[in-house]
């Protein structure tokens, strides 16, 4: 009783400190929201004349023909080609990076000896520390022309003859080139999260699977992978967020054309790319349109993140239910 009394007394004594602390934390939390809101509102206001001038054609038209006026909107601003560029390269990156990351994570957590696993993990995570402009340069000067170009020639020569979006003629820097290099950039993020999730598979369940006579593959297939699924999806979405916003490497490798190409092996442009590349020489009205593209990119990123949370929540629930049964 006396102890309880002491405790409550001390708690009352700290009440003001607690309140202050809570207030500071609350402010810190609110500041993030405030900054976000301020960014969204101010950019939207600046881009508003362009939104007003273009209406829906800002997202449905692919004619991007900037004007040079200081006060009015005289050009045409349709950002569809850039939306397609951003989404296509991001999807290519995920299609390559996710299976690779899951494979590597499985190998590191389940199959590799500790002597191999630690350096491998370290090396892949080092990839995350490479600045994106270095990825871009490496792709521009070495990887794309000498490694990817022969592969592209092969694909166009075989599959390209009957799959329309894999046809030639090839332009060396294109959607595919940007997507592949982007895959290397998102790989460490996806791999790190996936590895962490897989490493947390309960030892008891693994032993149980072996006890039931499962092979190593069956154990991974029925114990590790189902448990890791929500984590893998979350990691994928994290990677997608990075891919959508990646600017310089994509701008260097996507082929810089303002069209929606008919093949993955032709040039295009991404949303972040068009902002970075044309901002410097843009007239005031063009700057407004570029800010509009920024708002659009923000909106798309938010939609993707919300979709990701929804997917994680739904599949997470699904797994939990399955395990309860």
């Amino acid at each position, binding site marked *: 009783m006396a102890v309880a009394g002491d405790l409550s007394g001390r708690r009352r004594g700290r009440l003001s400190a607690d309140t202050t602390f809570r207030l500071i934390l609350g402010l810190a939390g609110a500041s993030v929201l405030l900054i976000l809101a301020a960014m969204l509102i101010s950019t939207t206001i600046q881009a508003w004349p362009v939104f007003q001038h273009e209406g829906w054609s800002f997202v449905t038209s692919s*004619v*991007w*023909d*900037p004007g*040079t*006026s*200081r*006060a009015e909107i005289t050009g045409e601003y349709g950002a569809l080609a850039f939306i397609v560029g951003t989404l296509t390269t991001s999807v290519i990156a995920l299609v390559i990076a996710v299976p690779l990351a899951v494979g590597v994570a499985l190998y590191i957590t389940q199959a590799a000896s500790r002597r191999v696993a630690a350096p491998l993990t370290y090396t892949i995570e080092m990839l995350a520390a490479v600045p994106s402009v270095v990825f871009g340069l490496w792709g*521009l*000067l070495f990887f*794309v*022309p000498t490694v990817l*170009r022969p592969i592209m020639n092969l694909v166009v020569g075989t599959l390209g003859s009957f799959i329309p979006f894999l046809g*030639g*003629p090839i*332009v*060396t*820097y*294109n959607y595919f080139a940007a997507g592949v290099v982007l895959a290397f950039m998102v790989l460490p993020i996806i791999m790190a999260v996936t590895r962490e999730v897989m490493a947390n598979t309960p030892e008891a369940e693994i032993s149980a699977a072996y006890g039931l006579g499962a092979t190593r593959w069956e154990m991974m297939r029925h114990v590790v992978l189902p448990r890791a699924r929500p984590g893998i999806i979350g990691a994928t979405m994290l990677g997608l967020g990075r891919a959508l916003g990646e600017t310089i490497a994509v*701008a*260097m490798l996507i*082929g*810089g*054309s*303002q*069209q929606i190409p*008919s093949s993955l092996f*032709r*040039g295009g*442009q991404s949303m972040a*790319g068009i902002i970075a*590349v*044309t901002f*410097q*020489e*843009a*007239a*005031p009205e*063009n700057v407004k349109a570029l800010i509009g593209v920024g708002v659009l990119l923000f909106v798309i990123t938010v939609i993707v993140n919300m979709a990701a949370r929804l997917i994680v929540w739904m599949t997470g629930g699904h797994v939990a239910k399955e395990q309860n049964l």
Partner: protein
Amino acid sequence: MKPSRLVPLIIVLTLVAAACGGTSSTTTTEGSSGTAGSMGPVDLLGAGASFPAPIYQEWIGAYQSVEPSVSINYQSIGSGGGVEQFIGQQTDFGASDAFLKDDEIAAAQTARGCDPIHIPTVFGAVAVAYNVEGLDSLILSGPTLADIFLGTITNWNDPAIAALNPDVTMPDEDIIVAHRSDGSGTTSIFTTYLSSVSDAWKNGPGAGKQVEWPAPNSVGGEKNDGVTAQIQQNPGAVGYIELSYAMENNIPVAKMINDDGNAIEPTLESTAAAADGITIPDDLRFNILNVGGEGYPIAGATWLLSWTCGYDQDMADALKAWITWDLQNGDDLARELLYSPLPDSLQEKALAKVDLINSEG
């Protein structure tokens, strides 16, 4: 290594110079302990076009030994930004690859209360570079070039190209059109030329720093380096780059047929010849078009921008002295960096404009 240790030092010095330029450019700097020289210490801040940035930096460096008390800081931020900062009074002088348009002049007049001045400094040629195996000589006409960039000519063995090159067997190869993906004065010069020789181009993509590129097999590169890389990496590619990039990278360039029907290779001489033969309006806002004789037809000037009023006398004197020195003594430096200096006739007109700096006080 010494050079690598110098780099941070240079960066620091540049930053210091930038800071000084930013603060003291609006205030008089009189009576402080003067270094040797005929003028008091003056800081000039300029910003703008990246195309002439190397020669401006070179001129600034050389002028330091002529007039040590004047320090000039030029920031290569692009023509668009240069014009904005110039009109916004954030710099003492601007620089642009495109002359101010009428609405920009109006905005400038409102902002400062007097006229902006255009002073042309150097010319540059835009070369049509290509990458076709086995092809080391190519002649193109303006309309053919426009058709290639419009996408109506898509193969190197097109009869229109073959007719211009009777001595060469043109290969059966798809043409890939390489262009600038960023806004650029080079693009402006190139598309202004195409508009002048092709109605289809004029009524289609038109002229500007950034246009719609209609050819289906087109690819963009950022800055001259990017387009150069695109041309080098894509067999069958043709693109436009500043002459100096084509020469430095040893990429073959097309001879262009000018208004007199002569096929002219882009060189410093043929660029100078182009600039010599044109009529120039009094405000020195001009494009180089309808070039004949020995002139190479795709060329353009770049300008320094200044004001007829609003400078401290010291600053106006320093600015006038520097630009005059550039125009009179900077030709050899310009040629070394593959810029074509002004022909004598135009140099006089440019110097007359320099005299107008701060003439209204």
